[in-house]
């Protein structure tokens, strides 16, 4: 039993954080938004050069062979920066899914992603649209009983505007003849379930980062903004709202890390833990995002600060990779289906 991150895990997250602090500022986000482009090529290249898309691709395919626990603190930092590029889903969902598919085309794509030469996007029956489809070279569609690979050139995309300008959603139409069925039957469903769990886990990790960013921005503003002759942050009302947000963050982060560590079990316990992580992290992010708007007052309600950008990312992630009802259902199934004594918090299904 060891519930700590390794030095390497912490360092990878710190390097990512430093890169994003430099290249993913509020001004950078506004510039990208104004341009309407899907990604910032300079920033993207830097992230690729760090090897992040290769993180969860096996070494045999040219990747780094890391796992969910390694990527979770990185995803938290991507949330903290509200990174516009779909790095987290590429590295955390698409690449390991492609690598795990027992089909040469899929493995080839995984290798190309690891090499920084290609991008992929994942469609999933738990959500109606595909995020990041316009920058993908290949689309991986998880449907009940099958997983399809679609070359991006063979599909038609219809943009579906999200409140988050960087959550680029698309309806995907394609001619069935072009699709490669890379998995079928129970194996397809197993991989699709794991993809969903990863999507939810990394959405949760981003939620933690977003929540912390909202609190940090608010604390900084509350120290600087003077009303009635003192910083508004000296008021208990402001302090206690922000303290409540921080409490939620502190008690969501360990759940997210536990979910990352347990995700491979793929049993009723790990699924419930992933769902718990998504619910707790996004609840913290929801509260922190709304509190940040409130602390910033009218500034927070305008584009004069960046607070709204983080709130909108929270809103986009809340329904992604299983909505609240879906995740509550999975927690409920574990609660009603298995013993709940103390000592069961790290339980594993035994056949």
């Amino acid at each position, binding site marked *: 039993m060891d519930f700590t991150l390794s030095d390497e895990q912490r360092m990878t997250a710190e390097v990512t954080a430093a890169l994003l602090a430099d290249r993913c500022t509020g001004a950078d986000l506004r510039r990208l938004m104004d341009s309407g482009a899907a990604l910032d090529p300079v920033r993207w290249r830097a992230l690729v050069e760090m090897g992040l898309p290769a993180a969860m691709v096996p070494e045999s395919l040219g990747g780094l062979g890391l796992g969910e626990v390694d990527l979770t603190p990185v995803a938290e930092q991507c949330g903290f920066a509200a990174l516009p590029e779909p790095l987290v889903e590429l590295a955390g969902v698409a690449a390991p899914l492609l690598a795990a598919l027992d089909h040469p085309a899929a493995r080839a794509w995984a290798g190309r992603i690891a090499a920084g030469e290609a991008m992929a996007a994942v469609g999933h029956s738990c959500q109606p649209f595909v995020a990041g489809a316009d920058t993908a070279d290949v689309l991986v569609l998880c449907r009940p009983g099958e997983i399809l690979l679609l070359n991006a050139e063979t599909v038609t995309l219809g943009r579906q505007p999200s409140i988050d300008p960087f959550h680029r959603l698309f309806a995907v139409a394609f001619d069935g003849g072009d699709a490669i069925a890379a998995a079928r039957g129970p194996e397809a469903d197993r991989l699709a379930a794991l993809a969903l769990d990863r999507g939810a886990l990394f959405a949760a990790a981003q939620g933690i980062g977003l929540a912390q960013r909202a609190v940090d921005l608010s604390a900084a503003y509350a120290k600087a903004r003077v*009303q009635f002759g003192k910083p508004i942050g000296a008021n208990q009302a402001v302090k206690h709202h922000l303290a409540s947000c921080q409490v939620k963050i502190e008690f969501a982060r360990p759940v997210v890390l536990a979910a990352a560590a347990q995700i491979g079990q793929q049993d009723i316990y790990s699924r419930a833990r992933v769902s718990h992580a998504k619910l707790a992290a996004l609840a913290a992010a929801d509260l922190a995002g709304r509190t940040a*708007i409130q602390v910033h007052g009218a500034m927070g309600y305008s584009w004069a600060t960046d607070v709204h950008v983080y709130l909108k990312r929270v809103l986009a992630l*809340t329904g992604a990779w299983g909505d609240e009802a879906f995740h509550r259902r999975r927690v409920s199934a574990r609660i009603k289906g298995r013993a709940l004594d103390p000592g069961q918090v790290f339980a594993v299904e035994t056949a």
Partner: protein
Amino acid sequence: MRLAYTAEQDAFRAEVRAWLADHVPAERLASFDTAEGFQAHRAWEKVLHGGRWSAVTWPEAYGGRGLDLIRWLIFEEEYWRAGAPGRVGQNGIFLLAPTMMEYGTAEQKARFLPPMASGEEIWAQAWSEPQAGSDLAAVRARATRDGDHYVLNGHKIWSSRAVFADWAFGLFRTDPASERHKGLSLILFKLDAPGVRVVPIQQIDGEAGFAEIFLEDVRSPVDQRLGGEGEGWTVCMATAGFERGLMLRSPARFQAAAARLVALADRRGADAVQEAAVLQAVMDADAYALSIYATASRLIAGGKIGAEASCNKVFWSELDVALYRAALSIKGAEAELTGPTEAADGWMDGYLFSLAGPIYAGANEIQRNIIAERMLGLPKG
């Protein structure tokens, strides 16, 4: 106590309903924070005025119907039930006008109220300044007397409707030596007057619902001062009373939203948490309506509105956020959608709008201070 409408009230409701059925535009108007939408909403104000429905509680002399608050509530219920457009004239009709009726001269009322009712002159408010938000008494913009004019200088911000409106009312320091609440005056000025520069502010949904107003030697005749010189704070607090009080948010708005929420939950299904939130939203919308009916009855019987206006503000703003948040939860993966598609059915826009509720018209933290100090007698911090 008699909680049934009179036959006359029922007949009034029928009249409103019939008129709205004939006149409410079939298509949703574009947002009044766009140029096109503003004009469409101004046109709707004129249509309303044509039926004498634009300011039903005003005296008939200024274009109203002299209705009591119960009929105002009935009118609002029908208005929201019919899904009629938002009121671009709100700043004038519901905020400035009640203050003007109390503090304005006969000339001011005759000059300003009729074109306000007709939509010919749309009003923006100009309270806040960059350093004077919750702490409104920190206002620095000044009005310097020059013969029969004031010369206005300063920087106003968070002025709703100012991008397209015709007139604004704002708080200015007429006594340069004064501090805090003293030496302020409420002055009306034209937004196209020389020296006025209006800079739109993008609000959270991307629209220009606010503006900054930069004033450089803007001349406003002395008879455009509302109330006495140096009495601006008192006059302004009266306006804030109306704003937080009855007329800013009619209960029907929340009842209509709650009814839509119930329909959404029916259509899409709701889990336990969502079902609980729906039930609470409906009950709270009803509680708000009942409370406003009770206040209206009390005012009709000669009572005065007091610190409970602060309770209203806290209650409706929190109920509103919870209501829209419940809708987003029910919509799940589709909640984030915006734009003209059917799946993007306005809940996200409504949610973002609801987030302004706890902030504007006196942040809820300020309201809770007021409640604690004035209703419960707790000491100042």
